[in-house]
């Protein structure tokens, strides 16, 4: 008997849960000022998520999922991608979308149940959030195929949760991306929970990153609450993709500190002590501790930032709340490039309010 394949999965961390370096930081992080934009973006995301939940609780927004506890992943992904790259998100990535240039007003419109919220003014080629699990992985492979066919130095980046790695679409997509050597990066935001199902029930694999091995592509694990590690690993993956060296799977380890969505009550299925334990590792305090240790961040900065984030979020809320509802005829707009004649009477009935005519 001989061994025909071996693999190992790297785990990268630069800042421990207290925000202390565990090894020399990479070049981009040598100047701690360079990390402040990530901190600001994470705080904005947390402020937005909290406001979205509050709006839902007061009947002013539909069901929405918060990224509380995993803000670092989306923030880094959205910030480090080039503008001309294409992002294909799942539904818990407000931070990444905001960093990509999707406005908070657009996000609130979408989560209030208004399709116009997905007509992003900024990143015109980014996909809308994918509600069905892991389907966006296949779409990302198709996007990446087109980018490669046209020889454009652009990358498709898709994000998914740990639950998505159990789906066929996930495996099929890694496999196709590998066989065609496509410019695509798959980022798993492993927050340990797929609604009520913990990571341990999701898969017997030691890591989710190793699922890349069977597809013949690089897979690595990173501390998903460590902005420095995330940027370090994601930079390399983007670089590989952009220079024609193919896809990468990144498993970013984090923890969902809140309910799955506003329609969920996580107290029904998980131990509050487990949640408390993970509060000690969350990404926002971790980076703040580091910045404070480096003496580039202080109480005044913090207060000013919080006030600024509150103001920006409130401005988006005001704009969102002032949005007139779509007219009923909008159900037929953009259904086809040109509405088929057979549907004209239904559209007219809907437009006049007599939808069931």
């Amino acid at each position, binding site marked *: 008997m001989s061994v025909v394949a071996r693999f190992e999965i790297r785990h990268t961390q630069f800042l421990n849960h207290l925000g202390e370096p565990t090894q020399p930081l990479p070049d981009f992080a040598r100047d701690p000022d360079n990390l402040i934009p990530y901190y600001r973006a994470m705080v904005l995301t947390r402020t937005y998520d909290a406001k979205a939940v509050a709006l839902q609780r007061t009947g002013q927004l539909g069901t929405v999922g918060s990224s509380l506890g995993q803000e670092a992943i989306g923030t880094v992904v959205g910030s480090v991608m080039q503008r001309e790259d294409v992002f*294909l998100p799942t539904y818990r990535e407000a931070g990444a979308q905001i960093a990509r240039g999707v406005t908070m007003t657009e996000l609130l419109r979408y989560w209030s149940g208004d*399709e116009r919220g997905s007509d992003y003014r900024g990143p015109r080629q980014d996909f809308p959030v994918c509600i069905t699990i892991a389907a966006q992985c296949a779409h990302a*492979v198709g996007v990446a195929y087109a980018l490669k066919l046209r020889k454009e130095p652009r990358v498709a980046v898709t994000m998914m949760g740990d639950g998505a790695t159990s789906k*066929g*679409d996930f495996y099929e997509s890694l496999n196709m991306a590998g066989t065609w050597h496509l410019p695509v990066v798959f980022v798993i935001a492993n927050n340990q929970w797929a609604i009520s199902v913990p990571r341990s029930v999701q898969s017997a694999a030691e890591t989710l990153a190793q699922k890349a091995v069977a597809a013949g592509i690089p897979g690595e694990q990173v501390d998903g609450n460590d902005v420095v590690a995330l940027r370090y690993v994601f930079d390399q993956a983007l670089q590989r993709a952009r220079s024609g060296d193919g896809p990468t799977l990144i498993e970013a380890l984090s923890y969902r500190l809140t309910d799955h969505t506003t329609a969920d009550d996580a107290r029904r299925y998980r131990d509050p002590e487990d949640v408390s334990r993970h509060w000690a590792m969350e990404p926002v305090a971790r980076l703040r501790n580091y910045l404070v240790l480096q003496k580039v961040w202080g109480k005044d900065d913090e207060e000013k930032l919080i006030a600024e984030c509150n103001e920006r979020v409130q401005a988006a809320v005001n704009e969102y709340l002032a949005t007139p509802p779509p007219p009923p005829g909008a159900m037929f707009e953009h259904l086809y*490039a040109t509405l088929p004649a057979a549907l004209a009477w239904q559209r007219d009935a809907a437009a006049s309010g007599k939808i069931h005519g």
Partner: protein
Amino acid sequence: MAEITLVEAVNLALAGEMERDPSVLVLGEDVGADGGVFRATLGLLGRFGKERVIDTPLAEASIAGISIGMAAQGLKPVAEIQFSGFVYPALDHIVNHASRLRHRTCGRLTCPMVLRTPCGAGIHAPEHHSESVETFFAHVPGLRVVIPSSPARAYGLLLAAIRDPDPVIFLEPTRAYRLFKQEVDDNGQALPLDVCFLNREGSDATIVSWGAMLHEVQIAAARLADEGIMAEVIDVATLKPLDMPTILESVAKTGRCVIVHEASRTGGFGAEIAASIAEHGLLSLLAPVQRVAAPDCVVPLPKLEHYFMPDVDQIVAAVRKTLEFA
């Protein structure tokens, strides 16, 4: 002008459109070196190269899924699902994403893809190779569902499907692939989508059908004509969106309607047509609408397939029944 089969017409349309439009590509299982298991993509790999004639890994869901990503980026993917019974994993992407990408982004992203698959029974194929799947897709807003019945229609409708800015499910009747030849002019001219075609004029009864069943319908109409019964024959061609005005106009003239399809009866697309006639043309009917359809059983393996397929006798009998009513 050459006489060619339906599958050759598919090939001709694909090759011509790939030549004219560099954004068109084909993908699927065995579409490259093998030229497709039915040879619909024969010769395309040599002409257009492996970047545009893509042998995919064996994964139907993702064949549909990646087509959506390609289409959103402005390519025009023509994906082949090898057999209709294998299309179900692709339904998720077609129903949840392809059909609604334009709508949910207010036209920012679009999905000009074609999903081709052979469909229907009657060629003694193994299990899962003989399904009639048109109704699954015809129920989905945002899609077009097209089934050609002849080489010329296959050529013109496939060109139209590829050029259409929205997703089109293009169902190719396997039984008709090599059933007969027809002169097809490779002139690059598309046929209109969203319209029914009048295959034969008549005044006594309207027979509405699509796909391979048109073959039996035409024979039935000819036999009826020998008896002096003039049946009008309509090839629906595009099931969604459905051109009811053409059907209603014919029924208003004949007062009788027989709908013929190879898919099983309950919830088949014939029910939609019959319901629309009841809603909009009831008073022009001189007899109840009749359906000739496959029974509500699993598509049998080849030993019993013959009994499953609607045949000429059944069609003739159904037309007679409408004539004998009251």
